[in-house]
């Protein structure tokens, strides 16, 4: 049985990034090439200053590369306007952050709806998707709670619900367990790993988390040092 090769959900093509520094510029990323398949689950690891956070920002179109391109579902983003990239993010990407970034004065459902606000859904669709997403992360009973009434782990689950409510192609997670204790962090990672039909890119400094994902990309000094398909090893 032949399987068609899946087109990548996202491809990084020869991306470099410079930042102004002192009198000149500092090159933070050097010619990165990377492909993420539609159901890939990738950990990006590396010491502080290796450029992994910058790479995630660029992959998520939150930042522009100095040279190179990010191709999403076959479409090049190099020539896209700010408005086009925003529209792309609203449909194709979901983000999970270390600090959760929930709004304190609205409940969980409305926080999840915020992730759908700019994507063109009707208010009814937003409500339905939000409640469904909260169910998927196991917080159906807490839909009307405010972040202040939720534990850290629960808040991160709300953030994950927000990230998946619109069925994105890729979920980007920047140190998702950084503000959580070991046990809570582990259950959050279980949840993330359980997401199907979406690619997952996780930045982490935690070796255990990195090892739990099928693919590990190690970075150092703005370059990819190693790109290991861990399942293939096993």
């Amino acid at each position: 049985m032949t399987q068609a090769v899946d087109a990548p959900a996202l491809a990084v093509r020869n991306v470099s990034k410079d930042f102004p520094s002192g009198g000149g510029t500092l090159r933070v990323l050097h010619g990165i090439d990377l492909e993420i398949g539609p159901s890939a689950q990738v950990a990006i690891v590396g010491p502080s200053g290796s450029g992994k956070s910058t790479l995630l920002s660029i992959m998520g179109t939150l930042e522009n590369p100095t040279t190179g391109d990010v191709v999403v579902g076959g479409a090049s983003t190099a020539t896209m306007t700010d408005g086009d990239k925003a529209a792309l993010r609203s449909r194709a990407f979901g983000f999970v952050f270390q600090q959760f970034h929930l709004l304190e004065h609205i409940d969980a459902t409305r926080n999840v709806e915020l992730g759908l606000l700019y994507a063109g859904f009707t208010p009814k669709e937003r409500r339905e998707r939000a409640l469904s997403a909260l169910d998927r992360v196991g917080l159906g009973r807490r839909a009307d709670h405010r972040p202040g009434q939720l534990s850290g782990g629960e808040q991160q689950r709300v953030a994950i619900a927000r990230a998946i409510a619109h069925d994105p192609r890729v979920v980007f997670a920047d140190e998702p367990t950084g503000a959580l204790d070991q046990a809570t962090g582990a259950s959050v990672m279980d949840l993330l790993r359980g997401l199907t039909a979406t690619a997952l890119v996780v930045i982490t400094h935690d070796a255990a988390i990195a090892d739990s994902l099928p693919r590990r990309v190690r970075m150092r000094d703005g370059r990819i040092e190693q790109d290991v398909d861990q399942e293939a090893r096993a």
Partner: protein
Amino acid sequence: MRLRLSVADTLATATLGPRSRPTRSLLSMLGVAIGIATLVAVIGIAGTNQAHTRTQLEALGANVLEVTPGDGPDGPIPLPTSAAAMIRRIGPVEGAAALRDLPAHKAYRTDLVPATMGSGITVAAVEPELANAMDLAVADGRWFDDATSAVPGVVLGSRAAQLLGVSAVGQRVWIGDEWYGVLGVLAPAQLAPQFDMKALIGDEWAIAHVGDPQITTIYVRSRSGAASEVRAVIPSTANPAAPFAVTVAAPSRLEQAQTAVDESYRALALGLAAIALLVGAIGIVNTMVIAVLERRGEIGLRRAVGARAGQVRLQFVVEAALIGLAGGAAGAVLGVLVTLGYGAVTTMTPRVDPVACAAGVVLAVLVGALAGAYPASRAARLSPTQALRGG
């Protein structure tokens, strides 16, 4: 592809900020509220005063005209002696009387004061009709009648009597070069306050003994509402031979004085309102700049989930405009309450101006939106990555 937020979504997004920080929002709308309250109250108070003055004047049956002689090609043309009598025959005229100023004459308490010293009191010769025409009331003694108009008697205005130290009828006043007996003292003249400082003598006596005084002014009181009719007819009635030499004016010094006071008061208070609005705007700018700083995380998040820079900017401009709206509405209500209070305290009927209220609210919204422009553009320019890291 450009995805737009609905108006409902835009408004809901913009109200999130103020709702999450109610006390701070309240404080930031205070400046604008005070500015608009001042605006509405000033216009309301001035309107109340003006309406009251107009009502007063109309209650006095006042539609007052002053007729004065004008110039012909060869110089001034005096009004005929019969002019006042002719004017009295005009239908809607309720009273008309001639006054002749005697500028060379001064009034003193004794005959020992040097002629060069003045007292501010002017002397004029008047027809007995003047009391009816100008609704002059006598506080003490009597007004002229046909008999006393022909003898050396004087009726003093209320202030003139005070200055001369005259308190009783029968005392004497030195005018020109003889003594005049005080016939009466007038009450303060509401319709024609200029009479308060005058010493009035009978015109029959004056014409016979004081040279040939010309008519300075004919005072005319017409029925309420008929003033312009009467005004049109007066020139040809007063001087049929030279109607172009007749000037008719509607001075009503009371109304003029009131208007002058209102206008200077209004200018001052509008200046204060403008300053208060400026301070209010600065308050909103300040609040919004702080809000943008505090909400960097939220701004970065919105950008991450697909908000365009322009949508972020719009969110904060609308938020500032809503603060302005709330401040303007509260200010308009407060201004109306102040106007009603003014009416209650002065027992005048309060006049609230709804156009001023509406204009004030619109102005407040504009001030808010303008104030929000700078902080909003700072929010829009934030780099999402940095906003998310820092927040």
